[in-house]
């Protein structure tokens, strides 16, 4: 059964003079534990689709089921709860909380969002720190670690709540290519270890090759779905 089902999703933005059609009747399905990428040039609608899947934005038309929930119908609070329970986010700029240590950044959603017991919290964080290779960096603050390490922490923070789905908008845009590959490799490993679905957007053609399912967007339209080993229109 598909984790995400999008049916005729459209998104329009009203600017001062014109209506911008960011997405136009997009249809797709994503299976659990898949490693998916939305690719396309700037303005093609990658971020918009990720925002809609992540309940940060609502479609202008169409239906979107995420983890058996019609997310377009959720209110503000319900959206927040849904995100906290089912989704993880990795941002282009890492977006770690600067006043918290690496450990505390990973701990944040467990305390502030999911209210997990201290013992389980410690266990999960330790496991995550080991998984992302930051075992000895827990006491450092974000400003004391490199960009690649920050993104590792962001991956750990996204996964520590055991979400069904992790959304990553241009997760490698601010990283050098070696670190970018390392981060994508880490995400893939996490998918393998935890069975979490990863969806990331990128315009980096080399990074795209790492995805197992690729959705190509252009001018807000889904032009192609590629599965490693073949192309499906």
């Amino acid at each position, binding site marked *: 059964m598909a984790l995400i089902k999008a049916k005729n999703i459209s998104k329009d933005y009203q600017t001062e003079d014109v209506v911008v059609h960011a997405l136009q009747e997009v249809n797709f399905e994503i299976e659990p534990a898949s490693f998916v990428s939305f690719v396309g040039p700037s303005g093609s609608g990658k971020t918009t689709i990720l925002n809609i899947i*992540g309940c*940060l934005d609502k479609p202008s038309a169409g239906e979107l089921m995420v983890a058996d929930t019609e997310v377009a119908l959720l209110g503000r609070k319900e959206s927040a709860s849904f995100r*906290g329970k089912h989704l993880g986010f990795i941002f282009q700029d890492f977006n770690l909380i600067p006043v918290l240590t690496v450990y505390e950044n990973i701990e*944040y959603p467990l305390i*502030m969002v999911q209210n997990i017991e201290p013992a389980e919290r410690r266990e999960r964080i330790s496991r995550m720190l080991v998984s992302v290779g930051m075992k000895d960096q827990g006491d450092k603050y974000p400003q004391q670690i490199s960009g690649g390490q920050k993104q590792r922490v962001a991956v750990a923070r996204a996964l520590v709540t055991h979400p069904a789905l992790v959304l990553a908008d241009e997760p490698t845009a601010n990283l050098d290519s070696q670190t970018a590959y390392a981060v994508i490799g880490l995400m893939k490993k996490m998918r393998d270890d935890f069975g979490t679905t990863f969806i990331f957007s990128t315009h980096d053609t080399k990074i795209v090759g790492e995805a197992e399912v690729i959705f190509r967007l252009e001018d807000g339209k889904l032009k192609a779905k590629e599965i490693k080993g073949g192309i499906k229109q």
Partner: protein
Amino acid sequence: MKNIFKIAVRNLIRYKRRTLLTASLITIGVVFVLVFVSVTGSFKSIMIGEVTDSMLGHLQVHRKGYVASIDSLPLNLNMKPKAYAKMAETLKSSPDVEAFSPRLKFGGMFSNFTETTSIRINGIYPDREFQTVPLLTSRISEGKKTISRGEIMIPLLLARGLKIKIGDAVVVVATNVDGSVNGKQFIVSGILESATGPGGRDGYVHIEDAAEVLRMTELEVSEVAVRLKDFNHLHPVMQQLEGKIAAELNKEGKPLFEVHSWEQLSPFFNIAKMIDVMTFFIKIMLIAIVLISIMNVMIMAVFERIREIGTIAAIGTLPGKIRSMFIIEGLCLGVVGTVIGDIIGGIIILIINLTGIRYNFGRQELLLHADILPADVLTISIIVIIVAVAASLQPAIKASKMEPIEALRHV
């Protein structure tokens, strides 16, 4: 909650200079208010003490209508012996009354045989008067601390003006109630410094001498000064007394007595009220300082952390928790500023008391004893902290209502 506090405190530490400046502003405001309240409060209580304990008493009871014509000291509005006896019974039976002193007052002429001037004579029972207004003795700058029959205590004003010394003979002449004039010679036994208010021409004689000057066959009483056991219960006791004496009616069926507190009898009460008004406005200024400074800081904090707000909202933090984070930041600023302010304020008050600042009140030199009640410190602190929280509300609500997608786009 612990984690919200942790994040709030770390965010405050993150902007050290700004936090320090804002907390300092609150501290300065709190210090200023505490010192002002303690100094003016102690000034007020010393002044009230001087007025009540050396002159007026806490309460006064008169025959109905006497106070309306008090400037002329009307002899026809004195309490008759029977009426006074009833009043004395009522006062004796009241558990809140510590002491009371009947006075026979009249206006007269005062002469040293070469010069003459006007005087207000207070006929008193010395022991009862000194129990009722214990600071009266402290106003006696020269001579005996009591009065015997045939003696008079005169105000410094007259002693200087008429060049009278202790032991000199003087004459008091007064018109009695039927219009005839009588005089009596007295020996000056004491010289009184004046307290504030209408005390500059008040002399004291024994009440029986006063009755003799006025040729009274039966001792009448112009007023009864009352001292309470607890000055803080002034108004409830006054109400009780009013209730008790309301039953005493004259032949026309109208109330026989009237009760007045010192507030109704002394013009100093207006000064005390002015001090209260000034204190109130100083407190308003403090509230304004806290409100503006914290609101300014919190608006800045929200503006600077829009992307962070977007991040925590995207992660799934509920709006209520985002709101709490900013409110607690304001709360922490308020608490830190207030606690430091309380400590510094306390130290300054201590220094004022150790320094021993003296000032003149009337002709008396008083020692300023700055004092503030713990309840006042607590009230001021709570007000500041509540205002700090209130000032954080608007920015906090703004932060909690931010759409995560827009906040994340913020550059």
